[in-house]
């Protein structure tokens, strides 16, 4: 799928990013307690391609966190095999394995007794990097998560806001440049507005660093937004579906998935695509000063009912209907009826649809950053997307 549809960063991702790992789970099961007890994870097999965000999502008790923690062996599987770039995770000492995997948790877990710089430098120091290299890397990472090193490096976590702590947590996880990051509800403990911002920031960051990321959440909307691939788990750690967000929304594999993603999954799918992903139609345009009779002829020739009146800078003024043209004279700005919503290429289809439904005209005028008309988008074009089994 086109990942640019949900990533704010422009351009497609590299197919085989360097420094990212392929993670595979082969028939992995985990039972707590007796051997015949209920499994927490049941015969789970998945392959997570390098450089992708794989979101593990499901209701509580579905084993998503257990699954994630088996990758860095905070929990050891009862049976099955997990590999990172082909290497069995059980073949390394747990401590060494974990130093190669970034780890971010919901409460962040910054060390309160260490400064921001010391927190970020923790894993490089465990790996015995030379001191100068650690310091350089810390500065680089603080820049990367957009915290001014001069202002932040010497602060203790107690003097940071929730969002700043979360950013330091991400920087700390990235410190030793791990090919794989595990993120356990990383944005779960912040308010919705901040969460949205951190998600966007993280997606922009990921577009640059392109790590393989295993991301756990219970929030379907977050999963759809963040994921290249979503693994939906159901009770007992049974894999219900593993696919791109688009496919899961368009073709849920079971009633469970359908129920879990919600009745509004059609609308959710629309958040995956943006206006720029759809073909736009060209409007019949008019300028002030043109003879009404000429414009009417042009409309009739095209069997169109309306023309879009533009100002000298190609910005939309409003619509002119055929009925308005049966009078002699030239077209004036007063003839036009304003009211068509304007859309940007970056607007998600979900937002576009709700804007268009809220206006009298079922057409959206797509404009560029200078408000110049790029084309038209109809509600029908959006509903075509909904009807398609998989879009794009």
């Amino acid at each position, binding site marked *: 799928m086109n990942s640019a549809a949900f990533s704010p960063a422009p351009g497609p991702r590299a197919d085989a990013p360097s420094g990212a790992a392929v993670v595979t789970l082969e028939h992995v099961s985990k039972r707590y307690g007796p051997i015949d007890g209920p499994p927490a994870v049941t015969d789970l097999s998945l392959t997570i391609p390098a450089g992708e965000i794989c979101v593990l999502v499901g209701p509580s008790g579905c084993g998503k966190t257990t699954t994630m923690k088996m990758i*860095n062996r*905070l929990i050891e599987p009862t049976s099955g095999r997990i590999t990172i770039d082909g290497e069995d995770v059980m073949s390394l000492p747990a*401590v*060494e*394995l*974990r*130093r*190669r995997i970034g*780890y971010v*948790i*919901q*409460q*962040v*877990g*910054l*060390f*309160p*007794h*260490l*400064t921001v710089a010391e927190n970020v430098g*923790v*894993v490089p120091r*465990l790996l015995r990097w030379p001191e100068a290299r650690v310091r350089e890397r810390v500065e680089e990472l603080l820049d990367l998560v957009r915290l001014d090193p001069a202002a932040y490096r010497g*602060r*203790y*976590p*107690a*003097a940071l806001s929730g969002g700043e702590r979360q950013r330091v*947590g991400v920087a*700390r*996880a990235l410190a030793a440049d791990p090919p794989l990051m*595990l993120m356990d509800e990383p944005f779960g403990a912040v308010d919705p507005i901040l969460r949205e911002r951190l998600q966007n920031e993280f997606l922009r960051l990921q577009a640059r660093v392109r790590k393989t990321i295993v991301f756990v959440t219970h929030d379907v909307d977050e999963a759809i937004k963040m994921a290249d691939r979503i693994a939906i788990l159901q009770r007992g750690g049974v894999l219900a579906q593993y696919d791109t967000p688009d496919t899961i929304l368009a073709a849920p594999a079971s009633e469970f998935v359908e129920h879990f993603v919600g009745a509004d999954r059609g609308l959710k799918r629309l958040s995956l695509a943006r206006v720029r992903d759809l073909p736009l139609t060209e409007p019949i345009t008019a300028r002030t000063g043109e003879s009404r009779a000429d414009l009417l002829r042009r409309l009739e020739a095209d069997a169109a009912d309306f023309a879009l009146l533009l100002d000298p800078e190609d910005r939309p003024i409003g619509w002119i209907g055929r009925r308005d043209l049966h009078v002699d004279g030239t077209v004036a700005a007063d003839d036009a009826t304003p009211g068509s919503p304007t859309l940007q290429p970056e607007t998600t289809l979900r937002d576009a649809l709700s804007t268009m439904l809220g206006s009298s005209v079922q057409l959206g005028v797509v404009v560029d950053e200078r408000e110049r008309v790029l084309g038209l988008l109809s509600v029908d074009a959006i509903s075509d997307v909904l009807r398609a089994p998989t879009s794009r």
Partner: protein
Amino acid sequence: MTPNEPFIRWDWIVANLDDIGARTWEHVLMTVIAVGIGFVISFALSLLIVRWRRLYAPIMGASGVLYAIPSLGLFALLIPFTGVSLLTAEVALVSYTLLILVRNIVAGFDGVPRDVVEAATGMGYGPWQLLWRVQLPLALPTIVAGLRIATVTTVGLVAVTALIGQSNLGSLIVQRGIRASFPTAILVGAFGSVLLGLVADLGFVGLQRLLTPWARARNG
């Protein structure tokens, strides 16, 4: 006390400054030995408890019993084995520190936020690295709080060991003061002991501020 003698004889204090200084130094040493050894034993016991939680009740129970024995009774119990000696005094003093120190050290470790321990483990801290670099620093304020109580208590108890012949500020009270009916020596011994406790307490407060700069970040 002769009828016309003043309550405090400053001239005696001035004349005996060397002696008072020596007794004070002995008092400090006995306290440091008791709290030092008590801390080492308590720390080891606390690690066992942190590792094997079911040891908590028996260890706390035993330290509690020790703590409940009156000091003179404990000396009497020990003298048949260790004689009238520094060893007897220190064994008793050490045993009184255990309850306070073990309780505070364990509480300190328990108070380390779980998310911090989880993050550290997930990032690849080994068990010892976790203990020394994460859990211990974060437990420090609670541990120091225990040391303060244990030290102040011990300073007071050291004076009692004068009754079994130990030389310290307590011996000023027992030998020079009570036996000779000389109130100045009693006051010097008592005040000296209180002052010592106070200085030790302030010393720990300063030490804690020095060792836990992050705790001040909250306000700054």
